[in-house]
């Protein structure tokens, strides 16, 4: 906007008050440092073996949308209802809310999201025409099948036993009820378009483009482990998912991560591009990044939504708009779609107040040309 032209003192107001806005004054030319909205990784996420976006998932729960939270989880984790019960939750040990009062019950929230109605619709790549068999249905094998399914391959899981789940079938019923496991397996199969065949007999796997064997599905040297290995006898050289000493139930997230990683190797073996892009986690938010003064103490709650509302969203912009309130030049604003904070660089003079005020350390001042 051009500056208003004033030709006579009588055009000025008697009282010294606003006669126009100041948008003509491009104070952005004064700037030395530039504010950049840049999320840091929350420490809970950094501690997660699957690197799943816990704060974002918790934010959806706080908004009252567990299905959206579940979709976020299932982009990383095919079995959130299992990890939400069995995982040793290293996330919670790192929760920064402890600096204020009590850490967030992240695992309960994960379980709560996993109980959302229906199955999320995740993007499935176009059909590749490749046939893949996964022998053994431990969490690693299921995760590999899941991600390979999402990549557009025709995937069949062959499980010699009666029930899919590998070592998960041996978890204490109090911790993981069999019907929960069954539902989780069914859901991941549905989401990724994977076929699961139980009581599969040893078979000749010729015709498959790739065969994977989940050696980690059962404790090494157990009868079940031997049955899984028997499935691939005489077939082509398989890609093996193994872990030294096998996995304990509490290490399920590590097993899932192994499967996810193996899915990428399988893609390479099939001459396809990787399916799961490991997120760039960058710097991890620390207590020093937070402005704890902005957060009121709040009791832990059994109610998922209330508990979720306690999450500080460490290092992650949750559109609280404290920056918008703080900027003396009204330069920080929600973009039109309301999804991100936009900074008006024509007028931002680089004072840094927004960065200082951001309660979660998600705005940094950068030396930019």
């Amino acid at each position, binding site marked *: 906007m051009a500056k208003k032209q004033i030709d006579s003192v009588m055009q000025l107001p*008697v009282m*010294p008050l606003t006669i126009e806005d100041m948008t003509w004054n491009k104070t952005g030319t004064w700037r030395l440092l530039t504010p950049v909205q840049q999320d840091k990784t929350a420490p809970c996420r950094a501690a997660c073996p699957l690197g799943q976006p816990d704060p974002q998932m918790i934010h959806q729960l706080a908004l009252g949308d567990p299905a959206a939270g579940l979709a976020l989880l299932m982009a990383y984790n095919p079995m959130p209802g299992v990890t939400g019960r069995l995982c040793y939750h290293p996330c919670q040990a790192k929760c920064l809310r402890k600096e204020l009062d009590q850490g967030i019950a992240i695992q309960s929230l994960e379980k709560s999201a996993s109980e959302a109605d229906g199955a999320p619709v995740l993007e499935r790549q176009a059909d590749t025409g490749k046939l893949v068999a996964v022998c053994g249905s431990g969490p690693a094998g299921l995760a590999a099948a899941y991600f390979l399914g999402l990549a557009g391959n025709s995937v069949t899981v062959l499980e010699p036993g009666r029930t899919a789940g590998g070592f998960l079938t041996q978890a204490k019923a109090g911790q993981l009820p069999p019907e929960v496991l069954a539902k989780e397996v069914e859901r991941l199969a549905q989401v990724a378009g994977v076929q699961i065949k139980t009581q599969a007999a040893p078979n000749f796997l010729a015709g498959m483009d790739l065969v994977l064997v989940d050696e980690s599905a059962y404790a090494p040297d157990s009868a079940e482990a031997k049955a899984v290995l028997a499935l691939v006898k005489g077939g082509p050289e398989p890609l093996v998912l193994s872990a030294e000493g096998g996995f304990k139930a509490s290490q399920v997230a590590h097993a899932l991560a192994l499967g996810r990683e193996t899915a990428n190797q399988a893609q390479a073996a099939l001459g396809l591009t990787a399916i799961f892009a490991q997120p760039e986690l960058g710097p991890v938010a620390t207590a020093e990044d937070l402005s704890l003064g902005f957060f009121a103490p709040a009791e832990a709650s059994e109610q998922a939504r209330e508990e979720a509302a306690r999450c500080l969203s460490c290092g992650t912009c949750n559109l609280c708009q404290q920056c918008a309130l703080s900027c003396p030049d009204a330069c920080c604003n929600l973009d039109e779609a309301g999804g991100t904070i936009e900074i008006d660089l024509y007028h931002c003079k680089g004072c840094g107040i927004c960065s200082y005020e951001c309660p979660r350390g998600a705005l940094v001042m950068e030396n930019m040309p």
Partner: protein
Amino acid sequence: MKRVIMGTETAALAAVLARVQVVAAYPITPQTVTVEELSDYIGKGELDAAYITVESEHSAMAACVGASATGSRTFTATSSQGLALMHEMLHHAAGGRLPIVMLNANRALSPPWNLYCDHTDSLSQRDTGWIQYYCCDVQDVMDSTFIAYRVAEKVMLPVMINLDGFYLTHTSEVIDVPDQEEVDRYLPPYDPADKVDVDNPSTYGCVCGADLFSSLKYRRQMETLAVEQAWQEASDEFAAQFGRSHAPVQGHNLDDAEVVIVTIGTAGGAAQLAADALREEGVAAGSLNLAMVRPFPYESFRRAVSGAKHLVVLDRDVSFGAEGIVAQEVKSCLYGKSSAQVHCYIAGVGGMDITEEILADMARESLGGQKQGLELGDSIWIKVLP
């Protein structure tokens, strides 16, 4: 209605009749009675106004600035040290073009401590941009309050009404108290074009760059200089309605006067008597009560003293390192326009009484009579130790 009433009570009653809507004031001798009376009026519901209690005069004026910006008729009262503490906010009120009216009880500034009349307090606020009016008697306190609001709200500038501490604040006189309807007829409600409005937000006292700053000051100076005329008109209209005039310059026997005694405040009465006494001695003497010091009433003053050869100026103040402030003002007004001699007398500071004889003796000295005081720089000090 006739009433025997004291200067400070009169100021409060005048504010009530002017229907002020906000009062923010801090008590200080010798103004205290005004503030007490106003809080009583408001507390008893006899005046429909908000009384804002504050912890200092700076805050009092800050509150008045905010209140006035919302379009409320605003009143305050102070004195001496209190006025000095307000200094920053005085600039804000005038620069913000806020028509606040304030009573100032003229009192000496410390140290040493002295509670009595002295004009240095208000005169040292000359350059804040306030209109300054000095009352000569209790009726003047009542009437000039109405004129002050009428002028202030027309020209959008604040007015300081000055009362000589104790001589006027604590003297009771018989005065005419006008009816509310009469006052309402003279002083309609305040309804400014611009006021703080949440539905139409604007920054009051916003930033202004060098490109417009001097133009704004130029316009303010233009409009401040026009106050002499505006006040004269408001005084004429007041005279038409109430039969009493309170012009910026009030003369007594000036038509043929060769010697004119110039005073501000209550000394005007004694100056008239002194001039009359000199007339009896055959001296063509008159007196001039300079009621308005800011803006300086250049036109009326030059006209009033056009035939004078000697101006005897009483200063109940001093600008250290220069001379009496009123004398400086008079000299500056007449420079290049008159060949009259200006004699500056510093007397009556800190409550020393100014009598008719003292004033007459000053006039006699300026005509070649006996020496009256001690000459120091360009002024003569009366009743000081050698």
